[in-house]
């Protein structure tokens, strides 16, 4: 057995073991921590599969933001967890049956794929120079399948509205609180003072380099969101009330500019979300830049959760 193959098999085994561990872990917080480790391992696997763009997203979202979201959920559940009744045997059996069916269906589909998978990759690479982009993933996201990317951002905003809607009426527009992290620590304070300049630089760099190399708006925006959450977590800055006009504008500016440029495509390039010849790259940079800011603020607010304190009158 060759060394790379042994490495790949051990990755697969460790990933599966991690997944099983998440399911059987007794405590929710422990399961979340294993889930974060699982996300980071999965990122390494994506690198091994030569998909660094996916790896960056998995590390930032799967290992980072989702971890914060789940820790927040675990903290909110803690009060009810001890008294919660375990699911009945029949519920468990139904859940197990659904899981087994889904797994078998997925295994069947993967097993029945043709050996030479149909691919559009050569065609995508052939017309990439016309867009002026160097990263084929950015080409797919903002040129070939721009509609998918636009809808994805709309979903993110809808999710934020959904989270805010969990608050009772009187708290609408109030201030969220990161209840998962009540501890104020001087060590964390030092990190929150040292890291953000580096993190903001890394986030902006990741968006900027995304046109040419692996990176992009989502990865960059996630790093910016992480920096904001770190500062908020340590109490250096308060979370602004969700009624703040500038914050809401920041959350929608990226998708809004995306839509405007998309409609301008009707007039200038004869199709929705088409770019006039020669202007593709600058327009994509504008879209990606504003999307980075919108993604950062939206992810940060999603992690912060629904408002829990009423707005000051």
């Amino acid at each position, binding site marked *: 057995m060759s060394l790379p193959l042994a490495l790949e098999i051990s990755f697969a085994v460790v990933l599966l073991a991690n997944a099983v561990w998440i399911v059987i872990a007794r405590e929710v917080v422990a399961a979340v921590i294993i889930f974060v480790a699982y996300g980071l391992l999965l990122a390494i696997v994506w690198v091994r599969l030569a998909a660094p763009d996916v790896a960056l997203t998995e590390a930032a979202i799967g290992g980072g933001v989702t971890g914060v979201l789940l820790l927040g959920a675990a903290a909110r559940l803690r009060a009810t967890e001890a008294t919660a009744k375990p699911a009945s045997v029949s519920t468990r059996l139904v859940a197990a049956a659904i899981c087994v069916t889904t797994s078998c269906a997925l295994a069947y589909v993967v097993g029945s794929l043709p050996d030479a998978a149909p691919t559009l990759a050569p065609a995508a690479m052939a017309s990439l120079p016309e867009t002026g982009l160097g990263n084929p993933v950015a080409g797919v996201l903002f040129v070939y399948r721009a509609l998918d990317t636009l809808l994805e951002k709309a979903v993110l905003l809808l999710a934020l509205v959904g989270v805010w809607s969990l608050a009772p009426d009187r708290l609408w527009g109030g201030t969220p609180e990161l209840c998962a992290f009540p501890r104020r*620590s001087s*060590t*964390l304070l*030092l*990190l929150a003072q*040292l*890291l953000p300049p*580096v993190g903001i630089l890394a986030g902006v760099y990741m968006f900027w380099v995304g046109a040419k190399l692996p990176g992009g708006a989502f990865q960059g925006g996630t790093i910016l969101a992480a920096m904001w959450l770190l500062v908020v977590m340590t109490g250096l800055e308060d979370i602004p009330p969700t009624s703040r006009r500038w914050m809401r504008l920041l959350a929608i500016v990226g998708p809004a500019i995306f839509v405007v440029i998309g409609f301008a495509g009707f007039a200038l390039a004869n199709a929705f979300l088409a770019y006039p010849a020669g202007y593709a790259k600058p327009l994509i940079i504008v879209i990606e830049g504003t999307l980075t800011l919108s993604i950062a603020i939206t992810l940060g607010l999603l992690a912060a959760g629904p408002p829990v304190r009423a707005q000051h009158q």
Partner: protein
Amino acid sequence: MKLALQILTVLAVSGGCFLFLAGTIGLLRFPDTTTRLHALTKVDNLGLGLIVLGLLPTAGSPLLALKMIAIWLLVQLSGATVSQLIAQLVHEQEPRA
């Protein structure tokens, strides 16, 4: 010169891997949280440091080399912070003598 750099790469990366192994064994075998943290910090600081040092001659460009050093420094910062946070938690929880 080239040979000397290659020898440095092999020696430093091997040393780094050894520290990773030792740190992992320490994490699994040491009796309590603070000594386990002690084992982990050796991996972060020295183990990763040696691997980065060994890979520097193979980086190809100074910018790439700087990025690797930046990664090492960032891992040190986060490792030190997390170790401190865990240690504080342990310190608060252990019964006062």
